[in-house]
């Protein structure tokens, strides 16, 4: 649906015209290629014109959505039914405390100041569910903004290394922070 205007052949006009033409052609080609791709995905095809491709795609998407919903409902049902059975089967879980002791890893906290504006924090603690959340909570309470962070798990222990920036005016004392974090680790 393009309108070709018949303008006087001026050199500049021709340039604009051909640029527009090319751009329009590319635009149409892009749309048509994508429509073809869409058509290839949809299994039910009635006619081969633009309108029916779109309608068929809409129908197919709705069908897929219904399918997903049915399957997930089914799963939920299955899960609800065998909840009690789950408790009877437990895979051996690594006892993290035992592991740490075996490898001689001790929980620790290290806090160092960088340039007076930033802190570098290193924490080692026992891997427990919810431990990371507690540490994050502590960080936010202290008003720290993370510049970067790295967390790894190994041999029943979690190592958290992070560079943080204080947001609340002056930095609290390094030792104080260390104290606080050690307390938190102990509570995990």
């Amino acid at each position: 649906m393009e309108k070709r205007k018949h303008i006087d052949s001026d050199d500049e006009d021709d340039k604009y015209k051909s640029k527009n033409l090319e751009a329009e052609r590319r635009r149409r080609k892009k749309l048509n290629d994508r429509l073809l791709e869409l058509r290839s995905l949809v299994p039910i095809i009635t006619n081969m014109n633009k309108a029916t491709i779109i309608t068929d795609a809409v129908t197919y998407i709705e069908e897929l959505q219904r399918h997903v919903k049915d399957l997930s409902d089914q799963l939920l049902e299955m899960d609800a039914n065998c909840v009690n059975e789950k408790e009877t089967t437990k895979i051996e879980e690594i006892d993290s405390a035992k592991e740490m002791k075996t490898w001689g890893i001790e929980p620790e906290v290290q806090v160092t100041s960088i340039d007076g504006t930033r802190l570098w924090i290193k924490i080692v603690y026992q891997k427990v569910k919810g431990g990371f959340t507690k540490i994050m909570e502590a960080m936010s309470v202290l008003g720290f903004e993370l510049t970067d962070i790295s967390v790894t798990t190994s041999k029943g222990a979690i190592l958290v290394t992070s560079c943080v920036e204080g947001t609340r005016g002056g930095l609290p004392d390094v030792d104080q922070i260390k104290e606080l974090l050690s307390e938190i680790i102990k509570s995990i």
Partner: protein
Amino acid sequence: MYEEIGCFDLSNMQQQEGLIQAEDGFSQTHIPNYSNPTFSMEEHLNYNQNHPTQQDVAAAVLEMEFQQQIMQQGETHLMQEIVNDSNWQEMSNFNGNMNQYSLPETPYPTTPDLLNMFSLPRCSSSTASLLHSAQKSPNFLASLGRLGDLNPVDGALASASVVYDPLLPLNLPPQPPLLRELFHSLPHGGYAMGGSRTSGSLFPGVVDERDVNGGDGRHFDNGVFGFTGDMDCIGKNRDGNDTKHLTTERHKRVLLNDKFMSLRSLVPNPTKKDRASVVGDAIEYINELKRTVNELKVLAEKKRSCKERLKRAKRGDDTMEGNIDTGSLDDMKQPYNVSSLRCSWLHRKSKNTEVDVRIVDDEVTVKLVQQKRINSLLFVSKVLEELQLDLHHVSGGLIGDYYSFLFNSKLCEGSIVNASAIANKLIEVMDKQYAAVPPTSSY
């Protein structure tokens, strides 16, 4: 209207060959009745059976003509005069010639009288209405004037259109050449809307005229034309462009745009509104849905086999004590064979968060990109805990204006969480946080 018109007896067609001449004339005089077609249509329907073809219409016309001939045995000379008359403007002469019909003051005096002559009990009552309609409708005369500008072929068209007027009983003396053309053109496709041009501008023209008249009252079945828009612009322009085609094209485009919009509404992350990106989003979404379906199927399969194993283990408990632990452990390992490896990938975007979730077997990898906000890690870890995901690796940090994080976690055994659930939940929480925290310039 076209369907109703085709209610003439086809069988009479062959007999009407010689009466073609009468056709055009009386069809011309039917024009004043045009503005009130519905009424006449009903009358005519009563009169005739239903034959919905072009040939039928022509046949009906001819039949009318035949009957008229029977009535007007002595008026052939008059018809000859009318035959020679191919110009609309000379209709007034018509009036003079038609004196013997003793018609009232209408420009097309023959009309009512012929009806009476027909002695069709059902149709007679329409005479008055015909007179009525003939007298009013200045628009119609104006359109007639318009038609007068057309060449004779179009004149035939106009008459052709009138031919399909159900008030055919009110026929008038014909004009043979026009009617012959009309007759020949009829089988060629009739009211192909803006379609075949084989018969010249015949049928589009015919249709156009109907459109014009339809503007007076929407008698025409809209389905035929496919649009209810402004009819004023329809019809042949002075410069001869076919605006009917323009309007159908416009309507088609409107429908197509609606379809694109509905497609866009289904997709979870609509970005741009232009057609190409709508289709692109749709493609990605379809792929995502397919992956989710597969993932759910595998999950269901695993769950089912897990249940089976549990049942067997339970039963085994009764029979083989002591061997059960190792047995069940081995069985547990089986779901993780290659054929039922669960894998899925999802990508979701919201205004200020981007989430990418990949699941392979029981490893969940989440990539998160979001605009700088504080405490985002806290919320993410809360969400992951909620979903029973065992976090064991995190890395990321601040990059320019954005936070970018990578989370590696393990699924708990027997968890039915799937990728889309994770992604949706994350996006939901993030968006909530963004809404709650007001923007601060210090960040």
